[in-house]
């Protein structure tokens, strides 16, 4: 069967343990919202994270991943959480606050102090390396 892969090796699964958002990804894609994935969910995840997935689809799921409290808006609390995950809490409170304010300031088009899906997409489709970083290769 060529090099088509039928089984995930332990290393391959381990390899994705470093993603700071791993828990969040599992939650977003799982049907019960707690990270327990059915096969369909799993396939969903990989299909979204594959290279072939269209940009808007990826952006949508990225939005969901970063929307920690599931309120369909990325608010400041979400941003802080994201930032702390990304930097492993190495920034000071002031810096975190400043960065979050800047993010909102940059991307919030309707001035409601939080990022809606629309804001997020508007921002993310212009990002030069979003497509190249938001995918997983098996």
């Amino acid at each position, binding site marked *: *069967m*060529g090099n*088509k*892969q*039928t*089984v995930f090796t332990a290393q*391959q699964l381990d390899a994705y343990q470093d*993603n*700071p958002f791993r828990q969040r990804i599992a*939650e*977003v894609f799982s*049907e*019960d*919202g*707690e990270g327990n994935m059915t096969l*369909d*969910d799993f396939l*969903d995840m*990989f299909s979204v994270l*594959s290279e*072939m*997935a*269209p940009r*808007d689809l990826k*952006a949508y799921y990225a939005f969901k991943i*970063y929307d920690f*409290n*599931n*309120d*369909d*808006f990325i608010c400041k609390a*979400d*941003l802080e959480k994201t*930032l702390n995950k*990304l*930097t492993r809490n190495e*920034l000071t409170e002031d*810096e975190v606050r*400043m*960065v979050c304010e*800047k*993010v909102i300031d*940059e*991307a919030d*088009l309707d*001035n409601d102090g*939080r990022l809606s*899906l*629309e804001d*997020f*997409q508007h*921002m993310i489709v*212009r*990002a*030069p*390396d*979003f497509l190249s*970083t938001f*995918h997983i290769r*098996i």
Partner: protein
Amino acid sequence: MPRKSETTRKLEDVGIDIDGEVDSEDEEPRPRGRANNRRQAAGRKGKKAAASEDDEDEEEEEAPRNRRTANKKKAGKARVSEEESEDEAPKRRRGGNKKKATKAQDSDADSEEDEKPNKRNKRGATNKKQKEEQNNKEKKGDAKGKGKGKDKDNEKDKKKKKDNSSSDSNTDSEEEESMSEGEMARLMEEVEEKKKLIANIRNKPWRMKRRLTLLKEAQLFVDKFEGALGKGKGRKLYAYKVMMMKKWIKFQRDFENFKTACIPWERKIKEVESHFGSSVASYFIFLRWMYGMNLVLFSLTFGLVVIPEVLMGLPYGSIPRKTVPRPEQPTAMDYSVLMDFNGYCKYSVLFYGYYNNQRTIGFLKFRLPLSYLMVGIGTFGYSLMVVIRTMAKNADVGGGDGEDGEFTFAWKMFTSWDYLIGNSETADNKYASITTSFKESIVDEQENQKDENIHLRRFLRVLANFLITCSLGGSGYLIYFVVKRSQEFANMDDLGWYEKNEVEIIMSLLGLVCPMLFETIAELEDYHPRIALKWQLGRIFALFLGNLYTFLLALFDEVNAKLEEEKSIKNASIWFMNEYYANFTAMNPNNTEATPPPVDPSDVIRGPCWETQVGIEFVKLTVSDIQVTYLTILIGDFLRAVIVRFLNYCWCWDLEAGFPSYGEFDISGNVLGLVFNQGMIWMGAFYAPGLVGINVLRLLTSMYYQCWAVMSCNVPHERVFKASKSNNFYMGLLLLILFLSLLPVVYTIMSLPPSFDCGPFSGKDRMFDVIMETIDLDLPAFMGTLFGYVANPGLIIPAVLLMVLAIYYLNSVSEAYKNSNMELKKKMQMARDEEKNRRNNKDSTNQVMKDLEDLLPNRSLAPPAPPEEKTENKPDQGGKAPKVKPGTAGNGVNFQKEVSLASANPNARGAVTRPPGPRGPGPLPGNNAGPGPGRGRGRGQPPRS
């Protein structure tokens, strides 16, 4: 075909891109499947079909059922077949057709998995229609994905065929008979649409369940009718093409990786960058660049000068210049030779004096003197070219300091993590680099936000510059004064230790104190650290120029002294020769042929050979510079770090946080050290061809050594700042140094007479006479006259004028471009602001956006969803009925199209009601699970924000 595990099968269906190829084996069973179809079609009995192969999923059953509504008489049979489907699998397995068995199992498993309330299935049917409309709308946008997806999916159709087609084959067969031309065309159209759907399905923002359902329906449809229409040729070729495409993509990816892996030290530098910021990394990038350039210089020098000399030149000891003189011989092998480069080192290929002035050497008639001169000039030419080219390229790339993107922080926040990272070490580095880059941007941002008292700031800056100019002038005068004094001292005897070493002491004191002084004064200015670094570099550079000045001055004094000495020795040796020949002819009057005096080459009187002396000075300087640098790192960084780290356990105060702390990486000092070192190399390479080799070794070791030192003993700067994208400031310094070092070398080549008894140019008036000689002797006569014309001032002056004009013109053009660039940037900024202000475009017209909005879980999962669904589904179903019976209802396709056109919006909203996935009633447990992340994507509780 080998059995596939269910996972794989599913993966394929979904179209996940597992780096595999489309296996062409899948093709083989197809004809059989088709044959089956045909047979059934011929049999034309629904009963038989049902008994033989019907193993539909429940959901797939939906489509047939719809058809049956129009075609009532078949319905019963189909239902029977549905019930029997469970029994079918074993039966066929018994039949021995392994492949079919697999298929059956798959689909059975699917159907079990997919067991859901009936409503769901109904919805699936409705969706079929919606999806088609969407498909129509989207197909243009998705044109790209289509090509790839299509044939893969097509292949899947074929595989599925057996499973799917049979149930409806009876219906088909009857329809086929009564199909007219127009119907045929319509059918084809519809099949095309389905195919498009199949091709695009993986790009749809749907949940897996829905996708599978739709995919199967579409495949079923296509299979059924495509067979009837006699299409489907050339699939193998198509599959092959896709396979090649995939391979090609993979190859490109691997090739990219390979290319990155080929960049030397990229990993090391990235690691440093992720922990210390781009400013420190810029030093290492500069170092790497320098190494590359020196490697070329090295290969030039060694390939064209040193190696020919070693291979084809006269061996050691054959002539005086290649022999250690007798008085030096006892100490020629001392260990100290390695330090001061006397003894055997001095009379080796490493230095100018060793080379002979034979016009050609070896059987290849290699013109060594000419080659020597050309390499000397070529070194400078190449360096100039490379530096300027790099500068131009850098200016082209970014030029701008920092970035003025509109979403700096947002992009950093949302796109900086690379989901591909699958290695914990890489992940650590990535964390560090993200943190660092955030810090860099924060520094930039703080700098922007700083509300400052402009007048005070300006005053302070002027003051700081004044102070620094004063101290620079003061140290310049001090250097001048000390050098003057040392020249006086040179004529005096019985000097103390201090008087002898005064210049060096003063110079190193200045070098120690002034940078710190500058740094302190620069605090007043309060520049952005990046700009502050540039100022600091420029100021220290100015200070170091004093160093260079004294060094060159001392060198020229020495050279002049040597030239005087040489003159007397030359006279003496000429006198000796004359005496010898006079005696020789006197003793043997018959023998007019003079044989050289029978003196051992090591006893011959020889001149001081100032070129070699200069070369030795440079080599010594370089070597001592290396030693000092390495020792400084070892003591200043490593030892300090060790002490701070381990003595901290038993010390009165906190060493790590308190006074000594760990060292920071001194960017300005290191860059300038590198730049000045390179200046030394350029100046010295002409007199000591081996110097380039030493430098290459130095750069190589220093790359590893400094990387290690930085990573293990230094801490990041307090304010990590982003280096400007281009290293152009470093390059500018380098260019300046290059010009400065070019001057003395050109001066010696053009105006000082070479030593009479050493080096490749001995016996000539000036070094460049070699070129004249070559033109006269080796090139045809007309070349000589040509050179004469070219060297004519009448030609040179217009040429220079022309160049000046060209420079002026190009300069003004680039100025104009810059202006228009600024203008455009301003316009973009304005447009951006406008867009930000305009927030009335809530209702997006973009279909894809709508589709995605539909995915929003709160809408799809909201409690009122189910009733809504029902109400919306009804019209859809109505619209669908004609479509599924294209054969009998003549205008079925049209009707369907009308519906789709007329009700674009309701349909889009229909998608709203459809949750993205098979999660109709599902979310409730998730919701019950409680608040927090555990709630998953449940819509539910109002936002916390």
